[in-house]
């Protein structure tokens, strides 16, 4: 699915306290690619992904989600062909693993047998066999991530939206989950929009890194990542990775400093 974001503007609150979160953002998230949205905190990257996912409504601008093979059919509504994986996962704590994964299918009226079958397939894909009937609060952080990933993938939507899903993980688990996601992406070739504030994560996972500015959120630069797939953590030691890292770091540093200056002046005012 190609996602065309056109002049998206988001204003939070009312005048005179209104905050411009997104300022006329336009971008084409290409079908079958993994695009990373990178930026300092508060740059509106979460807002952007939530608008694309139909969770929030934009103040202005539009989102067109079209199938490149049927470009004459009407575009999908935001959220219609996508599923979100949340920063804080939002697993249902009263449901066990399999009933969390099968939640979406249950809501769509899929019979128990079939939805358990499909949930089991996805649990196998993310390496959670044998944990089907565990309560979610007994799982480690990395396993909970896998449950959330399986819960999103089971919906079989062409677009997967990921809002800093690995931000809260410890460094080792994070590496494992990144490799896992890269593997699943290479296998399924979904259109993925991945929000992150970690530069290495963005390079490792992305086909393209969209660097955003501090508030108001605009697109500062789009950096294609032409590193070969399948990718693994070993890439981190290559000179290409280092060059990309330095380039993005330079862009981001400016924006982080901008964001800090903004906070500073807000405090003075």
């Amino acid at each position: 699915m190609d996602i065309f974001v056109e002049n998206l503007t988001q204003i939070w609150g009312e005048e005179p306290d209104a905050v411009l979160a997104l300022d006329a953002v336009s971008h084409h998230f290409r079908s079958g690619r993994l695009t990373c949205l990178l930026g300092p905190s508060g740059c509106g990257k979460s807002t952007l992904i939530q608008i694309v996912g139909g969770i929030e409504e934009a103040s202005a601008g539009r989102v067109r989600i079209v199938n490149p093979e049927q470009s004459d059919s009407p575009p999908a509504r935001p959220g219609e062909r996508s599923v979100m994986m949340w920063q804080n996962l939002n697993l249902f704590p009263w449901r066990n693993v399999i009933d969390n994964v099968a939640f979406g299918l249950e809501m769509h009226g899929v019979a128990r047998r079939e939805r358990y079958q499909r949930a089991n397939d996805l649990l196998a894909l993310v390496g959670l066999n044998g944990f089907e009937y565990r309560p979610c609060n007994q799982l480690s952080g990395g396993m909970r991530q896998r449950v959330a990933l399986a819960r999103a993938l089971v919906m079989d939507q062409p677009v997967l939206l990921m809002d800093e899903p690995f931000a809260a993980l410890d460094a080792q688990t994070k590496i494992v989950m990144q490799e896992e996601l890269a593997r699943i992406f290479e296998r399924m070739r979904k259109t993925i929009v991945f929000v992150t504030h970690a530069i290495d994560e963005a390079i490792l996972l992305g086909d393209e890194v969209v660097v955003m500015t501090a508030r108001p959120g605009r697109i500062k630069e789009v950096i294609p990542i032409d590193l070969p797939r399948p990718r693994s953590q070993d890439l981190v030691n290559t000179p290409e990775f280092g060059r990309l890292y330095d380039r993005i770091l330079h862009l981001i540093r400016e924006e982080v400093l901008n964001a800090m200056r903004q906070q500073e002046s807000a405090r003075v005012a």
Partner: protein
Amino acid sequence: MIRRGTRKRKKERLLVRLLPALSVVAFLVIWEAAVRLRGIPPIILPAPSSVFRYLGAMIADGSLPYNLGITLLRILAGFAVAGFLGVVVGVLMGMSRVASRVLDPWIAALYPLPKISLIPLLIIWLGTGETYILTISVITAFFPVVISTYSGIRQMDEGLVKAARDLGANERQIQTKVIIPAAIPSISAGLQLGMGVTIILVVAAEMIGGSNQSGMGYLLIHYGQVMETEKVFASLIVLAVFGGIIIKIQAAIDRWLAPWAMGKN
């Protein structure tokens, strides 16, 4: 060396676990000694040994089991009605803005009112029979259940609702599959508070006005009036143990209903 270390620790742990029992035993011994050594008349303060003798007799002649059974039935009836109404009204208020707007002033005004103060009015309206006891306990237990249920729904994690909607849940499914399950820990907490006040109000109503001359409240007031202090104490002990058992059972039900919320509330 290591073995001795663990054995020592085990011993300490055993001691800590026995502390509650030891504390009770020590209290009884001091009580008994004080009564005997100072010759306090049993009508003022009977010795625990004679309290237990009376307790045995009251169990044997059936008066304790009978009255405790009656009180238990009244508590369960009041709790069931109040729990049902409280959860239904609380859910209604949580789901519907209109309902919460309409009911809010009533709950805000009536919740802080000491429900015992309604007893004279209720006796005028309902007499002193079972209806009166049931009504006063229902009125009292209703409020904590409503308020907990309502606040549990209001304070729920918006993220779960968003996630459910993103996964294709419609509004009705969000209510039944997300909001209500998420509120179960608070509903359960409200039911526990409700049970506590039901016990209090049933016993109080049996003491004040209950014309059927039955129940633990009646026993207490009756033996108090005829100055059978040993029996007053025996009834109190039974009531305390009974209350403790009910609370424990409720906590167990709570753990069973909402194991994910343990350590959160």
